């Protein structure tokens, strides 16, 4: 049996992180966390630390890392302001089910609650926005609590965990012994599937419904990606001849070119996906949560459909939409069971309906935009499809893992990218969906690149979102992180402007931005830069970006009056889709 070793709490923390398989942390030091950073100095060969420029950047980078690698992202911050700067990212990770462990320092246990310098009650603050949190006040708790934190973050429906370590626990000596199994056995956690018989009956009912349906539709969410069920999903679609739509976070769960793929559902989704939702007689929803952005007005959502819902989190059942069959379990296991019972039914007409709607969308929305003389977002996304994703994928065809990871910020750029990027299962897709955090893109792209050094990482962002976390260019420079950044610059907060245009009588209240010269900014950070204003220049610039080594900033000056269509106005039904 292994003997306990005498060490400080801070060293015990780093040892535990290494034993949990962590090789990369994002962080920012400060007063209370210095003892941990002091030990980190001795571990630089085994534990890489990326120094960010703002704690929000650290937590978004950890998210980008976790989402692109499937491992738990880890970030460090000091007490007080460091910890409170984490809050937005933690909330984002909670809503998008991202496994991260945030380790924040805290003042001495004896000084808690005295308004000590840099004291903030981070446990109280993060209680509603974490899956679990814990304040470590004694060094001997570290060996138990840290493995528990990793287990909680990654198991079941993943989520963020906050561990706050008081300064005295960092410097106390402890007899350290790592025993993961013993630590996890002490957790009281009820995420178990109690009634297997009832679940089997539900699966049988689902198979019967799908086999007898005339117009079935699968809606796939991030749960498919989290459980690695992409292949079995495609198999289900093929075997049963069932079209597949996806949610914003589930965008890379199916190949864009797949015969059965019909697009993204929701407020800014594709026309075929939304129309087919309303026409379907059976909907199989996998690993998605029927968010209000997906359903529109719930009263008129999928009026003809019997809904089968597969989710690992049973709180999602009947939350927004009442469902007919509830299947509580892992998406991959459940899809495998369903796939076993599926029969091929010829639904050619139903699929053709999807094609017609797709053609209609291409003709009415995209064709005119692609032919436009002023550069617009449709042209930018189209160029990235043809001149970047396809060429990089072609070169990396035999390589394992992801070839191109696409990251977006929030707003019009995100919606254009989500609808028209030709993603495949070999592409990564990272975006902030539930919380819609502007400024998420740049740090998340940095995290994704750190986790996948062999993949190309492309960030699509607006001028507003880019400037929210622009300081992270410093992180890229210091650590030589190669992210290709495409700024869609329309000198406006585009999505808010669009709502003001459509629903607030064109009263553009405080949405126009006066931007800095991005050329000087990229020069200051030693990043290659190019500015384009026409579609022809865009093609040249993307080719240049594709060929260049190292980071690249491409500023595409796009039409400021353009709106993103099709769209479903807030509170309206999916039938009220607007195309202009």
């Amino acid at each position, binding site marked *: 049996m292994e003997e306990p070793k005498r060490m400080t709490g801070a060293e015990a923390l780093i040892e535990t992180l290494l034993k949990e398989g962590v090789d990369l942390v994002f962080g920012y030091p400060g007063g209370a966390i210095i003892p941990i950073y002091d030990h980190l100095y001795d571990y630089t060969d085994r534990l890489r630390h990326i120094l960010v420029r703002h704690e929000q950047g650290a937590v978004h980078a950890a998210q980008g890392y976790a989402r692109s690698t499937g491992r738990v992202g880890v970030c460090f911050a000091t007490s007080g302001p460091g910890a409170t700067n984490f809050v937005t990212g933690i909330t984002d990770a909670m809503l998008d089910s991202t496994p991260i462990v945030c380790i924040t320092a805290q003042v001495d246990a004896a000084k808690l609650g005295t308004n000590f310098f840099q004291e903030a009650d981070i446990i109280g603050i993060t209680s509603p926005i974490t899956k679990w949190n814990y304040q470590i006040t004694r060094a001997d708790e570290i060996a138990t609590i840290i493995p528990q934190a990793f287990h909680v973050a990654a198991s079941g429906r993943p989520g963020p965990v906050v561990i706050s370590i008081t300064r005295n626990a960092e410097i106390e000596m402890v007899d350290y012994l790592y025993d993961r199994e013993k630590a996890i056995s002490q957790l009281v956690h009820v995420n178990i599937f109690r009634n297997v018989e009832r679940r089997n009956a539900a699966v049988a009912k689902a198979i019967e419904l799908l086999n007898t349906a005339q117009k079935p539709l699968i809606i796939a969410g991030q749960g498919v990606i989290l459980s690695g069920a992409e292949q079995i999903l495609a198999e289900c679609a093929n075997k049963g001849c069932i079209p597949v739509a996806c949610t914003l976070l589930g965008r890379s769960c199916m190949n864009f070119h797949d015969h059965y793929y019909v697009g993204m559902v929701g407020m800014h989704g594709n026309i075929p996906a939304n129309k087919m939702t309303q026409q379907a007689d059976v909907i199989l929803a996998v690993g998605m949560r029927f968010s209000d952005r997906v359903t529109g007005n719930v009263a008129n959502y999928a009026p003809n459909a019997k809904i089968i819902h597969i989710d690992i*989190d049973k709180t999602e059942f009947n939350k927004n939409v009442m469902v007919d069959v509830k299947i509580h379990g892992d998406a991959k296991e459940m899809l495998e069971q369903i796939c076993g019972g599926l029969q091929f039914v010829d639904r050619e007409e139903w699929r053709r309906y999807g094609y017609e709607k797709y053609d209609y969308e291409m003709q009415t929305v995209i064709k005119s935009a692609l032919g436009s003389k002023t550069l617009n977002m449709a042209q930018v996304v189209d160029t990235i499809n043809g001149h970047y994703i396809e060429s990089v994928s072609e070169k990396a065809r035999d390589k394992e893992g992801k070839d191109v990871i696409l990251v977006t910020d929030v707003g019009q750029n995100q919606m254009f990218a989500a609808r028209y990027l030709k993603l495949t299962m070999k592409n990564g897709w990272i975006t902030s969906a539930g919380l819609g955090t502007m400024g998420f893109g740049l740090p998340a792209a940095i995290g994704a690149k750190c986790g996948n050094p062999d993949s190309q990482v492309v960030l699509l962002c607006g001028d507003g979102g880019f400037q929210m976390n622009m300081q992270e260019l410093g992180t890229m420079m210091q650590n030589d992180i190669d992210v290709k950044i495409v700024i869609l610059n329309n000198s406006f907060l585009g999505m808010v402007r669009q709502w003001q245009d459509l629903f607030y009588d064109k009263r553009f209240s405080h949405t126009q931005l006066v931007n800095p010269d991005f050329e000087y900014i990229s020069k200051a950070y030693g990043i290659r830069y190019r500015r384009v204003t026409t579609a022809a220049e865009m093609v040249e610039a993307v080719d240049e970006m594709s060929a260049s080594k190292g980071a690249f900033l491409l500023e595409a000056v796009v039409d400021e009056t353009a709106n993103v269509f099709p769209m479903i106005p807030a509170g309206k039904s999916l039938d009220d889709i607007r195309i202009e």
Partner: protein
Amino acid sequence: MENMDKYILDVLVRNRIEILNRVTNLFIVKNLPVQSVLYSVTSNDMAIINLICFCPDEEIMKRIIRQANNIVDISEVYYTKVFKTISNNNK
């Protein structure tokens, strides 16, 4: 609290400082009133929280129970709907 039904909740939890906060948070986020909370520590590092609360709809109550079941450190949750409250006003 008008038009709301009264419920009694019994929650078996792991006895740790932050857990009461998590349980009451289930009601705070939905802006639902809590009338009484009783926290009792049992012998085996566990605790029982008895809570009296108001809720407009049993479906919402069931949702809260499911959310409670999802919280790490909560072992079991039961609820009872109080159908009649005996008032002393009409003697």
